C-alpha cells in the first residue's frame, strides 16, 4: 500500500512538475543590435531588434562601454529615438571613440544578451536628406534650363564648416523608369539643361558628408517644362495713309515661342509724353493698327513700337517714326474704261477714262493726284508707260488694229508714293477696217484671176481669131467715089489691070514704069520661074500670072474692076510667097543672090512674083546698101513693092528686133531678123497677121508725119478690097476681113499710083504717088537712114522715122483717103 501511495505521490509530483514544466516562462531570446547612425557627427542613435520575449514581459537594456574603459554604462535615452532605440546625445557622444554596445533582454526567468556591436561615430555618419528642394524653368538668352536648389539637412551644421556636404541630384521625366543621377558637389543648386519641353520632370536630391553614407533621397519634386518660348522681336513693317486723313500700320510678328502671343502697338505723338495703345486693331486686319481721323494728326511725328507678349516673356520692336504727311499712298484708281472712238476724219483712237480712288478726297483739294497709264498688247511683255498728269482721261492715237490691249492706271499724290496698279482692263481694237480691205483685195484678186483664166481659155479655144479680135484689122478706107461693091465683086483681073493702069502717068517716071510693066506683060514665059527656083509652084501664082497678063498694061487705070481683081489675087500669092521667103532667107544667102537674079528677071514682068521674090532678092543683093532702093523707086511696081517691103521690113525690125539691138546699121540683117522672126512664128497665118499688124502699127505714125501733103489728095481712086481671098487659107480670117489694101489708082488727073507693097497675104497697099514729091522722098530718106542707122540707138528711132517717111509717104498717100478715125480706133 505504501508503494501505491508512493507511486501516486510520484504521479502527482510528476504531474505537478509537468504542470510546472508546462507553465514555465523561459528566458528571453537574444536581441540584435541593428545599426547605429549619427546624422551630424554630434549625436548618434542605435537601434536593435528584440529577440523572443519568452512569454514574459521583457526588459531591454542597452549597455555600452567606451573603448579602453571597463565601466559599463546603460543607454542614456531610450525615448528620443523611439522604441528599441537608444539616443546618445552630445554629452554621451564622443568622436573618435569606439563604443562596444550590447543589448540585454531580461525577464523573470532569465536574461539574454546580444552580441556586442562596435561603433565608431565618425564612421556611422549618415546625414538627413536635403530639404526644401525647389525647381524653376528659366530662359535666358534663348536657352531654357531647369534651376534646382535646396537646403542642407537642418541638423547638419554646414555653416560652421564643421561638416561638408556633397550632393547628388537625380531626375527623370515622369513616364520614364530610369533616373538620371547627377553629382552636384558641395553647392546646393543645379542647372539642368537639355530638357524636353512639355514634359513633367521628377527631381530628388541627397547628400553625404566626407565619409559616411549617402543620405536618403529627398522627397520628390515635380516640375513641368513649358512648351514655348518668349516671343521674338516683332517688326513694324510700314505705315500707309490712303487719303492723308487716316493711316494704318502693319507689323511682322517675330517668333511666338510656341505660345499664344499678344501684340500691342504703342505710340506716342510728338510733343505728347503719354504713351497710347493702338485705337483699332481690327479694321485693317490682323497684325495691323488703324488710326482713324480722330487719332490721326498731320504734321506730327508718331513714335510707334510693337510689343509682343506671351507666357514666357515679351519683346519690343525698334521704334519707328512716322510723319503722316509723307506716308500717303492712295488706293489704285477705279473704273478704268477703254473705248475705241473715231476722230472726225474716221481714224480710230482709244479713249481711256478712270476715276480717282474713292477714298481720296480730290474735290476738296486735300489731295492732288497724278496718274500714270500703262498699256501693252496682250501677248507683249513690255509695258508702255504714259504719264498723264492730273487729268482722268487720255486719248491714245497710235493703235495697232486687231490687237487686244491691256491697260492699267495708278496714281500718286503730290508728296507720296505711287499706288498699286489698278486691275487690268482689256480692249480689243477692232480690225474690221483692215479686214474689209483685205476682203476687197481678195475679191479683186479672185475676180481678176477668173477673168484671166477665161481669157486664156477663150484664147485657147478661138486661137488666132482672138488675136484679131483684140487687135482688130485696119478699117477699110472710105473713099468718096469708090465703088466698094465693084471692088468686092469685081474680078482680080480687073484689079490687076487697074494696077497696071496706075503705072501710066504722063510723067517720065511713069513711062519707065510702063516699060517695066510691059515687060511684065511680056514675060509670061517666066511665070514658072519662081516655081522652079523656089520650089513653090502654085496654081495661085499661075493664075496671078495669067491675070497679070491680061491686066498688065492693058487694063485702064480707071477701071475699078482691075483694081478689085488685083486686090483679090495678091492675097493668096503672098501667102505662098511668104513661105519660100522664110525658108530661103533662113537657109543661105546664096539663094538670095539667085533670088536676086531671078527677081531682076521678074522685074516688070510678073509683079506678083516679083513682089514676093524681090523681097528676097533685092535685099541682100542690089539693095544691100539701102533699104529702099531709090533706083527701083516708082519705075516699076515691083520696085515700089520692094521698097515697101523693105521699108516694112525695116520697120518691123525696128519695132521688134531693132529696139534691142544695134544691128539695124547693117542692112542685110533686117531681113534675117525678119526671117527669123517669121520662123519663130508657128504658122504662116500667124506671122502674116503679125506682120499685117506691124504694118498697121507703122501706119499710125506715118499718118501724123509731116510728109502729109495736100497734093496727095489728087490721086484718083483707091479701092478697098476685102480680104476674101484669105478664106482659102484660114476660114476664120473672114472675120478679119477688115484688112484693107490701099490701092491708089491714078485717075484722070494723070497721076499714078503704085502698089507699094503686098503685105503678106492679105494687104495690098497701093500708093498714090505724086511725081514731084515721091522722087526725092524715095531717094533721100534711105540715104539718111543709112547714116542714121549707123548712129547710136537713140538716133535710130529717128532713122526709122526717116526710113518710114518713104513708107509714110506711100502709106499716107493712101491714108489720105482713109478715114483716120478708123485707124485710130483700130490701133487704140
Amino acid at each position, binding site marked *: 500500500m505504501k508503494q501505491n501511495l508512493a507511486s501516486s505521490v510520484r504521479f502527482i509530483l510528476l504531474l505537478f512538475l509537468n504542470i510546472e514544466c508546462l507553465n514555465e516562462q523561459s528566458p528571453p531570446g537574444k536581441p540584435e543590435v541593428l545599426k547605429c547612425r549619427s546624422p551630424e557627427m554630434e549625436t548618434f542613435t542605435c537601434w536593435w531588434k528584440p529577440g523572443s520575449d519568452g512569454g514574459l514581459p521583457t526588459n531591454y537594456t542597452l549597455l555600452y562601454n567606451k573603448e579602453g574603459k571597463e565601466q559599463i554604462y546603460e543607454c542614456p535615452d531610450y525615448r528620443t529615438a523611439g522604441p528599441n532605440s537608444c539616443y546618445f546625445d552630445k554629452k554621451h557622444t564622443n568622436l573618435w571613440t569606439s563604443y562596444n554596445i550590447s543589448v540585454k533582454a531580461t525577464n523573470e526567468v532569465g536574461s539574454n544578451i546580444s552580441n556586442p556591436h562596435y561603433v565608431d561615430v565618425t564612421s556611422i555618419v549618415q546625414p538627413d536628406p536635403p530639404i526644401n528642394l525647389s525647381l524653376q524653368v528659366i530662359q535666358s538668352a534663348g536657352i531654357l534650363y531647369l534651376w534646382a536648389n535646396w537646403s542642407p539637412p537642418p541638423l547638419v551644421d554646414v555653416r560652421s564648416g564643421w561638416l561638408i556636404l556633397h550632393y547628388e541630384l537625380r531626375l527623370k521625366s515622369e513616364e520614364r523608369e530610369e533616373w538620371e543621377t547627377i553629382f552636384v558637389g558641395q553647392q546646393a543648386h543645379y542647372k539642368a539643361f537639355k530638357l524636353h519641353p512639355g514634359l513633367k520632370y521628377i527631381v530628388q536630391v541627397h547628400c553625404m558628408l566626407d565619409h559616411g553614407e549617402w543620405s536618403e533621397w529627398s522627397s520628390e519634386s515635380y516640375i513641368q517644362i513649358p512648351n514655348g518660348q518668349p516671343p521674338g522681336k516683332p517688326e513694324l513693317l510700314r505705315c500707309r495713309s490712303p487719303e492723308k486723313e487716316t493711316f494704318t500700320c502693319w507689323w511682322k510678328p517675330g517668333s511666338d515661342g510656341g505660345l499664344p502671343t499678344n501684340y500691342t502697338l504703342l505710340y506716342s505723338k*510728338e510733343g505728347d509724353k503719354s504713351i497710347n495703345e493702338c485705337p483699332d486693331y481690327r479694321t485693317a486686319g490682323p497684325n495691323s493698327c488703324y488710326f482713324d481721323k480722330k487719332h490721326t494728326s498731320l504734321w506730327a511725328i508718331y513714335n510707334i513700337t510693337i510689343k509682343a507678349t506671351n507666357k514666357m516673356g515679351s519683346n519690343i520692336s525698334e521704334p519707328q517714326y512716322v510723319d503722316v504727311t509723307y506716308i500717303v499712298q492712295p488706293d489704285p484708281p477705279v473704273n478704268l474704261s477703254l473705248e475705241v472712238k473715231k476722230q472726225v476724219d474716221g481714224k480710230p483712237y482709244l479713249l481711256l477714262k478712270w476715276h480717282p480712288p474713292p477714298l481720296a478726297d480730290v474735290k476738296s483739294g486735300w489731295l492732288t493726284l497724278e496718274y500714270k497709264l500703262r498699256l501693252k498688247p496682250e501677248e507683249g511683255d513690255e509695258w508702255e508707260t504714259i504719264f498723264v498728269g492730273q487729268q482722268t482721261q487720255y486719248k491714245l492715237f497710235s493703235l495697232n488694229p486687231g490687237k487686244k490691249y491691256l491697260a492699267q492706271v495708278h496714281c500718286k499724290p503730290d508728296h507720296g508714293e505711287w499706288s498699286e496698279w489698278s486691275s487690268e482692263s482689256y480692249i480689243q481694237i477692232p480690225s474690221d477696217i483692215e479686214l474689209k480691205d483685205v476682203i476687197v483685195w481678195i475679191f479683186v484678186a479672185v475676180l481678176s484671176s477668173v477673168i484671166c483664166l477665161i481669157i486664156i481659155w477663150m484664147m485657147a479655144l478661138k486661137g488666132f481669131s482672138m488675136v484679131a479680135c483684140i487687135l482688130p484689122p485696119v478699117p477699110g478706107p472710105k473713099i468718096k467715089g469708090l465703088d466698094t461693091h465693084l471692088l468686092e465683086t469685081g474680078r482680080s483681073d480687073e484689079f490687076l489691070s487697074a494696077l497696071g493702069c496706075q503705072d501710066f502717068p504722063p510723067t517720065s517716071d511713069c513711062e519707065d514704069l510702063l516699060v517695066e510693066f510691059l515687060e511684065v506683060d511680056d514675060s509670061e514665059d517666066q511665070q514658072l520661074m519662081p516655081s522652079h527656083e523656089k520650089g513653090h509652084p502654085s496654081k495661085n501664082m499661075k493664075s496671078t500670072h495669067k491675070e497679070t497678063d491680061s491686066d498688065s498694061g492693058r487694063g485702064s487705070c480707071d477701071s475699078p474692076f482691075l483694081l478689085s481683081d488685083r486686090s483679090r489675087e495678091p492675097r493668096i500669092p503672098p501667102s505662098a510667097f511668104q513661105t519660100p521667103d522664110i525658108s530661103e532667107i533662113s537657109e543661105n544667102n546664096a539663094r538670095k543672090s539667085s533670088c536676086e537674079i531671078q527677081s531682076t528677071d521678074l522685074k516688070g514682068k510678073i509683079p506678083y512674083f516679083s513682089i514676093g521674090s524681090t523681097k528676097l532678092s533685092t535685099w541682100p543683093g542690089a539693095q544691100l546698101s539701102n533699104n529702099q532702093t531709090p533706083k527701083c523707086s516708082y519705075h516699076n511696081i515691083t520696085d515700089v513693092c520692094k521698097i515697101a517691103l523693105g521699108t516694112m521690113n525695116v520697120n518691123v525690125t525696128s519695132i521688134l528686133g531693132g529696139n534691142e539691138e544695134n544691128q539695124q546699121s547693117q542692112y542685110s540683117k533686117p531681113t534675117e531678123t525678119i526671117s527669123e522672126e517669121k520662123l519663130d512664128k508657128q504658122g504662116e497665118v500667124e506671122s502674116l497677121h503679125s506682120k499685117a499688124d506691124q504694118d498697121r502699127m507703122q501706119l499710125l505714125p506715118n499718118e501724123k508725119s509731116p510728109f502729109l501733103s495736100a497734093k496727095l489728095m489728087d490721086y484718083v481712086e483707091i479701092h478697098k478690097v476685102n480680104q476674101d481671098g484669105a478664106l482659102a487659107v484660114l476660114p476664120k480670117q473672114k472675120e478679119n476681113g477688115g484688112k484693107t489694101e490701099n490701092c491708089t489708082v491714078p485717075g484722070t488727073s494723070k497721076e499714078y499710083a503704085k502698089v507699094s507693097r503686098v503685105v503678106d497675104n492679105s494687104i495690098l497697099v497701093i500708093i498714090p504717088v505724086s511725081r514731084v514729091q515721091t522722087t526725092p522722098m524715095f531717094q533721100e530718106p534711105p540715104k539718111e537712114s543709112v547714116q542714121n542707122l549707123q548712129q547710136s540707138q537713140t538716133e535710130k528711132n529717128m532713122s526709122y522715122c526717116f526710113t518710114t517717111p518713104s513708107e509714110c509717104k506711100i502709106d499716107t498717100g493712101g491714108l489720105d483717103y482713109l478715114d483716120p478715125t478708123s485707124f485710130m480706133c483700130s490701133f487704140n
Partner: protein
Amino acid sequence: MEAWRLQVPGCQNTSLPRVPFSLRPTLGLCYAWLCALLWLLGKPPGAVFVAICARQGDSSCRFLSVSDLFDRVIQHSDRLHSLSTALYEKNFLPNGNELGKWTGKCHTSRMLTPNGKEYVQKIPREELTHLILRLLQAWKEPLSHFDQNIGHHQELSSDSLSKAKQISNMVHELKTGMEKVTEKMQSMGIISNSLNGMGSSEAAGLSISNEANLMSDYEFIHCFRRDSNKVQSYLKILKCRIWPGNSC
C-alpha cells in the same frame, strides 16, 4: 515785292482795274525788274508769265483771274516744298532714322494749326488765309537769318546752301504773292475784310522767330519742310473751297 512780280506782275493791274493804283508801277520798270530777277533766279513760271504779258494790253493778260493767280501761289508753294524736301532728304535722311532725334521744337509749334482735313475745312476762309500768312511770316525772318549766316553751316554742301538761299527768296515771294491775292480776294468780296490783325501776328512771328535761331539745322529744315507742306495743303483746300470744280 519786286521779286513777286515775277508771279503776279503789274500787267495784271492793267487787266484788272480793281487793283489799287499804288501797286501799278510803270510797266517798263516792271519788266526790267522782271528780266533781271528772272535771270538771277531762273524761274520758269515767271518766264511764262512774262511771255504772256509781254505785250501791253494783250488780251491774254486779261484772263489771269484771281483763281489763276491762286494757282500760281499754289505752284509756288509746291516748289517751295519740294525744294525743302530735297534739302531735307539730301542732308539728313541718309543718316538713318533722323526722326527719332526729333524733339518737336519748331518755333511755329505754338501756333495752333489744324492737323487734319476736317479741321482745315471747318476753319473759315479768312482765318485760313490768315493762318497761311502767319505761317509764312513766321518763317520770313528765320530764313533770312539762316541765309545770312550761311557761312556757319559748314556741314551743308554748296548745293544745299544755294537751295537754302532759294528757299529764303521764295518764301519772301510767296508771302508777297499771298498778300496780293488776299487783297484781291478781299476787294472782290471773296473773303471778308476781317484780316486786320496782321500787324500783331507779324509781331508774334518776330518773337517766335527768335526761337528759330536756337534750332539745329536739322530741326530748322525739318520744321520748314513741315510748315511749307502745311501752307501748301491749306492753300489747296482754300482754293477748292473758293473755286470748286476745275481740278478740285
